[in-house]
């Protein structure tokens, strides 16, 4: 009886992590149609940034903001130098972003060696619900995830910038004709996507080990989540994170955890095949 609430709670926490690592991809893959194979490396940049800034004595929240800023800047730089030349060209984008991912990983390796870094938990202790104890930081993660989704939704649907990004997505040429500076908007939205990945890296850094190749583990996860959520929908992605994490977590409570992952991944493949517009979005023409 007691096992299910634990699984559900862990699932909620895992969903928040998944949501955080995927939300940047909603912008970059969903709205800009760029398949960014370096997504995981921006998570890695965020994780290293938060580690470095904490080592320098900065409090964790500020370090996390710094991580966001650093990843956003690196992302914007990549967009300016590389990505912008390959819009709407899938194969070149894949190759170029893979090159970026290799380069970023190697730079991290040269700067910090392959040694694993640890970031201490910014909040310790835990909450107990009944007889169960959950680490306090888990709730921080959940809160940050909720905040980020609200923030991005507000940005996209309430501000001028959001309107511009959506306008470009729907009709680039028309947007240009209407006087939107598409080049700047592209750089900002790509930077924003990378920045959010960096923030995710910062938030998960205390939970995991920080090392140069840590990002690659999140690439498939974030693609899966975004696609199941309907590619360009923040709410859909939130729901997809929940669905994927909860099902992995609950299944994992009954069978081998790897088997659970395999089953969920196969489910995702089926979604990709039969509902490429995601489970939660309205059917498009």
């Amino acid at each position, binding site marked *: 009886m007691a096992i299910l609430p634990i699984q559900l709670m862990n699932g909620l926490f895992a969903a928040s992590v998944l949501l955080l690592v995927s939300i940047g991809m909603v912008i970059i893959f969903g709205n800009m149609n760029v*398949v960014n*194979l370096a997504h995981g490396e921006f998570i890695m940049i965020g994780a290293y940034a938060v580690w470095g800034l904490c080592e320098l004595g900065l409090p964790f929240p500020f370090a996390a903001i710094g991580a966001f800023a650093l990843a956003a800047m690196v992302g914007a730089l990549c967009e300016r130098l*590389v990505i912008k*030349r*390959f819009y*709407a060209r*899938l*194969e*070149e984008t*894949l*190759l*170029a972003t*893979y*090159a*970026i*991912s*290799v*380069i970023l*990983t*190697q*730079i991290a*390796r*040269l700067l910090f060696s*392959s040694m694993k870094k640890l970031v201490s938990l910014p909040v310790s202790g835990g909450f107990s619900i009944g007889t169960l104890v959950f680490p306090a930081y888990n709730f921080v993660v959940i809160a940050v995830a909720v905040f980020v989704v609200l923030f991005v939704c507000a940005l996209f649907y309430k501000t001028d910038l959001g309107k511009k990004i959506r306008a470009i997505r729907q009709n680039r040429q028309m947007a240009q004709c209407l006087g939107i500076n598409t080049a700047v908007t592209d750089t900002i939205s790509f930077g924003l996507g990378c920045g959010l990945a960096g923030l995710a890296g910062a938030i998960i850094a205390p939970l995991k080990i920080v090392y140069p190749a840590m990002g690659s583990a999140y690439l*498939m996860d974030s*693609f*899966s989540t975004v*696609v199941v959520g309907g590619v360009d929908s923040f709410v859909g992605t939130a729901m997809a994170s929940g669905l994927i994490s909860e099902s992995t977590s609950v299944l994992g409570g009954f069978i*081998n955890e*790897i*088997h659970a*992952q*395999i089953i969920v*991944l*196969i489910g*995702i*493949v089926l979604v*990709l*095949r039969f509902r*490429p517009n995601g489970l939660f979005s309205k059917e498009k023409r």
Partner: protein
Amino acid sequence: MKKPNPRLKNIPRRAAMNVLLLTFILLYPLTAGLYRIDIMAKVIPLMVFALSVDLLWGYTGIMSLGQAVPFGIGAYIAAISNNVSVGIPSYMRTYGITEVPAVFRPLTNPYLGMALAILIPCLLSFVIGRLLLTGKVRGVFVSLITMALSNVLMLAVNNAQRFTGGSNGVNNVSRPSLFGHVLSITENYYFVALIAALAFAVCAALTSTKLGKVLGAIKVNENRVAFIGYNVTSYKVFIYVFSSALAAMAGILYARTCGMVSPSLTGLSLSISAIIWVAVGGRGHLTGALFGCLLLNGLERIMAGIIGDAWELVIGVILLLIVFCVPDGLVGTLLTARPKVKGLQKKEAANG
């Protein structure tokens, strides 16, 4: 004014490059010690793998990020078959397995094992291809789905330790044997090179048929092909299965030459590496794939000894340079010096 077709002028240049490559491979053992010969014998199967990627991506335009799936399955089946044909592998014994598991019993016959190492990946690819290559799935999603499948396989291989040796892989795989005689390092080198040459010949013949033209047509304008009456899906599935067979064969050769297999042979990074070899060499020429594979693997083995990990940085930079400056690849650029009408083509492609 009559404009000659640049493709026709290429043929002597391409033949010259092929002869050059072949001469290099034939003469290499004369210049190197056994250690280096063995290293090169491990690269040649990867060249066959690169051919399979080129058929699929370079000729037909299907960018699979899971080509390591047939390669890895082929390699694993070959390795396990080699192990169980002489007894119970040590990794199985550590899990208390005292007789060959029922699923592996057919593999105790080395010939049947070899056949299954090619047939099973083909069968799998046939099923995946039928589901995936129907034209209802956009290009990006084909790449993503194949990537996910390769993740599934890697998870499964890592997890099924009793059967696959988990992250340690399968070891103690012997080199190929002919007529009861296990090949020496040099003999194996020429054996692998012979099979690679045959594979190349078959690929070259296949791509020069009308089927090759249909595939090229699918690559540039898939939609139009259907409206002149070709069933695009069956062509795509055919080449997908064919290239899987090739990849599986490369996997078998690789496993038998290296003497071991590990889960990384099924993963994304091998698939992407092969795509990079083909991109660097130039897609859609076969020769480009061979050359790119040889060049990058050769460089890797030389450079990694000198600058260590930083080699990967070099790879990243090379790849960026290729994408920016020589999008047709090194060999591709050498072979096709065609007039600059790129912009126009792009527009048409977008309209089509």
